[in-house]
């Protein structure tokens, strides 16, 4: 009997190397490589009149300096717009190095290559760029006003505008339904910018040997970087390999690609015939990677006496920053996931995505969901307050019931497919979270409040992932999948799946991710999809291998494959443990040999008598080797859900906000490794606390990011993050073979909504803007209480 592995808190296979300094992150590679650094725009909006690199040429160690004009036509093209959408009528992307105009502080203007990073920065400091300043567009209001333009050919700064309407069953539109509703409310909500902010920045390291290019990138998608780099450099795909080494966190920012540096560093390596590396520093990460979150939402809602939403009309202003390389995924996710676990009578959502002279906005863990959930949960709290009802009762009145699955929300989701929830049990989840936090027995008093937030998260989006599984003649199992890892423990979770499917000890399984040499077809790690999509692909590949192993073993054991089972790496006849053959031997037999390279291999050679002389050694339709490859391509996303609740205390004098309890009930279907899932939740909640109480990107009127350091961008330390109490509900997904749903983003999604709910409860006035600092709470008290 194989030890149960699926669902167990197996210790991580990654840890021994990461705990001993043997991890290999991008900047740990290429000790001999040249170093790149960039002159970046100090202005938010300007035309480049002239670049004088002359003063830098004497810097000792300088190797090369490039401006946009030095780039070949193909390399200098605007970067791709990764996800086009019909509503994105004015999509714009940056050039790898600025061409004529810079549109945010931090945009790369000149690339410098030198013997080390110190020398490269010395040279950067001496390069003189003459800018003709233009008035920058900063903030949503200014962007919408449209007096100044970020892109001359984008009128009103509007990149995209999309209206989606889901009428009520009777055919009424949301606006009609609201007019007819017994109660209506309208209000405005604001959410400020934050960012993924992994502790390892981005980085690229390239080696060119005259024919083949190998690129290492701290990316969330090595396969797609490979295609983008090959296209930009005009290289045949087989001559380019891309490897994501150990990656020090991603959280979304590293799914964008190709970043300018992912094109420029390989190009420089080819041009110079030398290894070149660029490791982003923290200042660069703040001003030249990506941010997220900023939205203004105008909400109108109509509801009945029970608090049931009859009509909901949401108008969203979304700040896209200077460019839209990742399309309009973030506002699409906000618009669709806003509905959460609720059935809404009629829904109308409209978003306008506008350009500003700030760092571009692309998905950060949660990817638009925190904003949508903030909107819906604020709405629920306001309805409850208006009706004088308990906030959980109003939510309950609006829940989709367990018997209503699959539930069609009537919209198109971020994957271009219908927004149909596959499974869930929201009333049970509410019961669990209320019990966990002690909702009904909570003792409210001034300065002490309780809050709740619910969400549904579409996870495991397609189009597909693949898995390759090979059992070698030493009995080891080698699993590879194309997507990448940034700390999610894929090597462990995927090994658990493979070990369980194949009946082998987990110690014999090794997993490789993010290496295009091993698996070239993949999409990437984002949208809580890795476990769902790659996990199922690996399970399917294992099942193929298992079937083949049983077939070969059946031959060798003269048994019926249906009577065989695999445990501890041995194929045996069920009920007759003595009749068995190790998988290592099966692997040998799977590969008919002419040459014996060791004793075991001799069993598969042509005079060993193990093969029938009447059949070709490799039968028709078969392949040599005990290996298999399969893909999982989900028909639709699978919908995880969660409910969080918190107790906060607000200091009556200093207005400090302390989260004294934080509870999470989470449903991601079947758990592969509960320890890893809990870790994901803890980390997500911590990021959510950051977004709710500490983190913001502060731009001044000139478009300068004034808090571009860890001194002033307040990522929480251990002292700021509450202890998280968790409980799990498992409603398996009917959509995939393993019944799993994604868990990566879950923790972060409702936190701002929960904290707003709790602070509002403690203070007695509306909290409609997040994050909230003690200073802001103090000012809000003055406004609300005089």
């Amino acid at each position: 009997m194989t030890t149960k592995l699926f669902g167990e808190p197996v210790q991580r296979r990654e840890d021994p190397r990461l705990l001993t300094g043997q991890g290999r992150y991008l900047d740990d590679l290429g000790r001999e490589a040249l170093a790149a650094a960039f002159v970046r725009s100090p202005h938010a909006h300007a035309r480049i009149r002239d670049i004088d690199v002359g003063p830098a040429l004497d810097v000792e160690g300088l190797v090369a300096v490039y401006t946009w004009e030095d780039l070949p036509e193909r390399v200098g093209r605007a970067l791709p717009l990764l996800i086009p959408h019909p509503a994105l009528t004015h999509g714009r992307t940056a050039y790898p190095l600025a061409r004529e105009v810079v549109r945010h502080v931090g945009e790369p203007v000149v690339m410098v290559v030198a013997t080390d990073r110190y020398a490269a920065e010395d040279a950067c400091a001496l390069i003189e760029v003459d800018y003709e300043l233009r008035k920058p567009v900063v903030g949503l209001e200014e962007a919408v006003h449209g007096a100044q333009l970020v892109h001359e050919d984008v009128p009103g700064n509007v990149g995209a505008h999309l209206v989606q309407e889901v009428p009520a069953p009777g055919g009424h539109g949301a606006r009609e339904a609201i007019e007819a509703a017994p109660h209506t409310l309208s209000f405005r909500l604001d959410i400020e910018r934050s960012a993924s902010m992994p502790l390892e920045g981005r980085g690229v390291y390239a080696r060119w040997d005259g024919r083949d290019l190998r690129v290492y990138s701290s990316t969330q998608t090595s396969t797609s970087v490979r295609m983008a780099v090959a296209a930009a450099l005009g290289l045949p795909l087989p001559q380019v390999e891309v490897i994501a080494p150990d990656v020090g966190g991603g959280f979304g920012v590293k799914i964008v690609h190709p970043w300018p540096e992912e094109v420029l560093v390989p190009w420089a390596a080819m041009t110079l015939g030398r290894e070149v590396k660029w490791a982003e520093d923290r200042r660069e990460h703040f001003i030249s990677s990506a941010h997220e979150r900023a939205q203004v939402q105008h909400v109108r809602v109509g509801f009945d006496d029970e608090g049931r939403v009859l009509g909901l009309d949401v108008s969203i202003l979304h700040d896209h920053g200077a460019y839209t390389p990742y399309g309009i995924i973030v506002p699409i996710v906000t618009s669709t996931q806003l509905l959460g676990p609720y059935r809404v009578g009629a829904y109308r959502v409209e978003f306008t995505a506008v350009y500003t002279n700030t760092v571009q906005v692309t998905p950060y863990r949660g990817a638009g969901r925190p904003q949508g959930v903030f909107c819906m949960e604020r709405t629920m709290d306001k309805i409850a307050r208006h009706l004088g009802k308990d906030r959980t009762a109003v939510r309950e009145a609006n829940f989709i019931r367990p018997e209503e699955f699959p539930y069609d929300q009537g919209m198109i989701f971020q994957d271009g497919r219908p927004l149909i929830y596959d499974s869930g049990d929201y009333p049970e989840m509410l019961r669990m979270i209320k019990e966990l936090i002690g909702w009904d027995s909570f003792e409210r008093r001034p300065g002490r409040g309780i809050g709740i937030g619910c969400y549904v998260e579409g996870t495991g989006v397609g189009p597909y992932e693949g898995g390759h599984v090979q059992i070698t003649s030493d009995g080891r199992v080698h699993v590879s999948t194309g997507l990448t890892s940034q700390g999610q423990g894929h090597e462990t979770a995927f090994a658990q799946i493979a070990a369980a499917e194949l009946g082998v000890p987990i110690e014999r399984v090794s997993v490789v991710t993010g290496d295009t040499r091993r698996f070239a077809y993949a999409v990437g790690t984002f949208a809580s999809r890795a476990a769902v999509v790659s996990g199922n692909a690996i399970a399917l590949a294992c099942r193929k291998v298992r079937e083949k192993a049983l077939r070969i073993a059946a031959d060798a054991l003269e048994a019926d494959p249906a009577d065989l089972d695999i445990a501890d790496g041995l194929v045996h006849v069920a009920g007759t443990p003595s009749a068995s053959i190790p998988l290592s031997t099966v692997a040998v037999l799977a590969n008919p040999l002419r040459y014996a390279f060791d004793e075991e291999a001799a069993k598969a050679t042509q005079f060993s008598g193990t093969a029938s002389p009447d059949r070709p050694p490799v039968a028709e339709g078969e392949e040599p080797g005990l290996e298999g490859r399969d893909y999982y391509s989900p028909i639709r996303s699978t919908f995880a859900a969660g409910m969080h609740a918190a107790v906060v205390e607000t200091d009556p004098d200093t207005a400090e906000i302390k989260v004294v309890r934080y509870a999470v009930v989470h449903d991601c279907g079947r758990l592969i490794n509960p320890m890893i899932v809990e870790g994901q939740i803890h980390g997500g909640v911590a990021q959510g606390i950051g977004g709710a109480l500490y983190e913001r990107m502060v731009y001044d009127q000139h478009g300068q990011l004034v808090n571009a350091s860890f001194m002033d961008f307040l990522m929480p330390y251990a002292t700021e993050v509450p202890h998280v109490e968790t409980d799990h509900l498992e409603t398996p997904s009917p959509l995939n073979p393993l019944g799993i749903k994604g868990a990566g983003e879950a923790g972060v999604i409702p936190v701002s909504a929960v904290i707003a709910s709790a602070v509002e409860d403690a203070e007695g006035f509306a909290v409609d803007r997040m994050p909230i600092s003690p200073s802001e709470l103090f000012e809000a008290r003055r406004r609300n209480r005089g």
Partner: protein
Amino acid sequence: MEHEITLVVNGTARRVRVPARRLLSDCLRHDLGLTGTHVGCEHGVCGCCTVLLEGRPVRSCLTFAVTVDGAEITTVEGLAGSDGRLSAVQRAFAECHGLQCGFCTPGFLCTVTALLADNPVPTDDEVIEGISGNLCRCTGYQNIVKAVHRAAELRAEET
């Protein structure tokens, strides 16, 4: 101008020529090839680059290599026993899932190693205060705190 210095790193004297401005973090990583010490912000806030200088945790990104010429330094590569057995702190981090991407981990391990040497049985508050200068973007710290307590137990069992 370069300076010839000697650093006793993980018990081995290493001679190296560095310019005066070489940060200790870069010296360890790029001159000595000890890439386990990570660099996350280079302004002393994140704690990824924390190493032990004469047994006490310091930011290697806020220290010039020349300044500590002759000093004894322990990096994450030197925390395991000479037989390769992971230290109690390292084992506790694995056991309690105190790391995810692993980038901040070397800084935490060095900080916690010194913390427990000073205070073998810290309270919860002392643990949180002790690790309060290290940022982690993955774990939410909960399992790190758990790991520090577990490491204290393992150390006690082994002495």
